[in-house]
């Protein structure tokens, strides 16, 4: 623990939040995530996502995925620098982001592109799609090993090393977003900046005893 460089938000506030967090069972996150995905699909089905629900649903799932990836990357810096402990939820956040990436991918392939031949053609010919898919492939082993059995099987050190694949995956995800935007748009760049910033927090020289 790098308790020395903690900036507490106010006396008692951080412990209070941490205390409250401890009382929230992690399964609630899975329930909320699954319900959210289903709710968005339902909205798409019933006209709630506007005139072009396929693109909208694809975008919403993609944005949720990248938001959760950012949230997952923020867990360690929040604990190290602010003292907030979201650690019990980190796996759920990661699994949910993986889940929304899959949902995003399925809407893209099945509802948007619609044929296997064109999915394949897009993967080969469209760099932002290739990059998005590369990000997904990096996340695949993480999704599959996000369980206690895999942690035991791999051992903590190897498991942690494997799960650092989320760093390049996050950068690829942000690049995918930046690249697909039409014109100079701010939002994708903000995600890229957030992800690079959170990674920089981990990779700065470990002079103060912190661990990446």
């Amino acid at each position, binding site marked *: 623990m790098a308790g020395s460089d903690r900036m507490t938000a106010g006396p008692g506030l951080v412990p209070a939040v941490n205390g409250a967090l401890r009382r929230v069972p992690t399964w609630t996150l899975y329930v909320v995530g699954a319900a959210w995905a289903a709710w968005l699909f339902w909205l798409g089905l019933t006209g709630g996502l506007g005139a072009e629900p396929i693109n909208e649903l694809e975008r919403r799932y993609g944005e949720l995925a990248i938001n959760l990836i950012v949230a997952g990357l923020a867990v360690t810096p929040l604990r190290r620098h602010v003292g907030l402990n979201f650690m019990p939820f980190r796996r759920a956040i990661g699994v949910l982001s993986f889940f929304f990436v899959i949902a995003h991918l399925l809407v893209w392939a099945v509802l948007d592109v619609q044929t296997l031949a064109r999915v394949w053609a897009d993967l080969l010919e469209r760099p932002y799609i290739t990059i998005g898919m590369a990000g997904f492939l990096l996340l695949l082993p993480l999704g599959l090993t996000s369980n206690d059995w895999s942690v035991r099987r791999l051992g903590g050190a190897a498991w942690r090393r494997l799960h650092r694949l989320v760093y390049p995956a996050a950068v690829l995800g942000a690049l995918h977003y930046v690249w697909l935007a039409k*014109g100079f748009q701010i939002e994708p760049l903000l995600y890229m900046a957030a992800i690079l910033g959170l990674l920089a927090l981990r990779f700065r020289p470990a002079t103060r005893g912190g661990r990446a």
Partner: protein
Amino acid sequence: MAYRYRSDLTRDDVTPKDVYLNRRQIMAGAGAMMGAGLLTGEARAQDAWDLTPTAYEDATSYNNFYEFGTDKGDPARNARMMTTEPWSVVIDGMVDRPGTYSFEDVVAGMTIEERIYRLRCVERWSMVIPWNGFELADLLDRVGVQSGARYVAFETLARPEEMPGLRVPIIEWPYREGLRLDEAMHPLTIMATGMYGEPLPNQNGAPIRLVVPWKYGYKSIKSIVRITLTDEQPPTAWNTYSAREYGFYSNVNPNRAHPRWSQEFERRVGGGLFARNIPTLMFNGYEEEVAALYEGMDLIVNH
């Protein structure tokens, strides 16, 4: 000289207002009952020749008008801020009667007719819109195009206090577009002042916009404040942003992929969550009318 083009559809083919207003509720209700959009009985375009007009609600809520924001819903949310009365259009350059024309002056004496056109966005969605407008050729004839003029340049209003999107340099403002003179004089090219028999909503380019149905939607510049006749190809917004992605001509062409996506297919807006992609037509289905304009040109190079 109006009425130089006739589409085979009339106002009777346009979805009546009460039907399109109810459509969402019907969809929602049916979806709720059956749990599947496939079963809602929604009519879907089987191919791009289908000229069933898009629901008014969809055509006025799903828009690209980046001056009001980049989200498709931003124009409908923000465009009401735009003052369209009074409105004037500067017509200048190589014309006999240059000047600042009020909107009323521009439309005075023009024959407003209905044109039901396909609208194909470069982003691969499409609509069918019943426009009300007049042929651009009629306006150009009235102001007198001088003999050396070869291009027509257009400019959209850029009023920061009414257009929040201008704060972000997504493209170079003001939005600019251009046509070769023969394209501008073509009978398919119209200046629209209305759609679905009503004045243009702000998000659709009120009070006056260009409609060039065989080109990608962004060529059909909205809320026009300036028309300039020139002898040089004018700079245009998206082309200036990325010439590789957006050519000056921007004719709808399924054989020329956008560098980031194929243009072989499109999807009609309003088809719901299970809408099928349909093959895009050369020149958006207006090949017979406009192919002659580009005889001998390589349309991949001159995209």
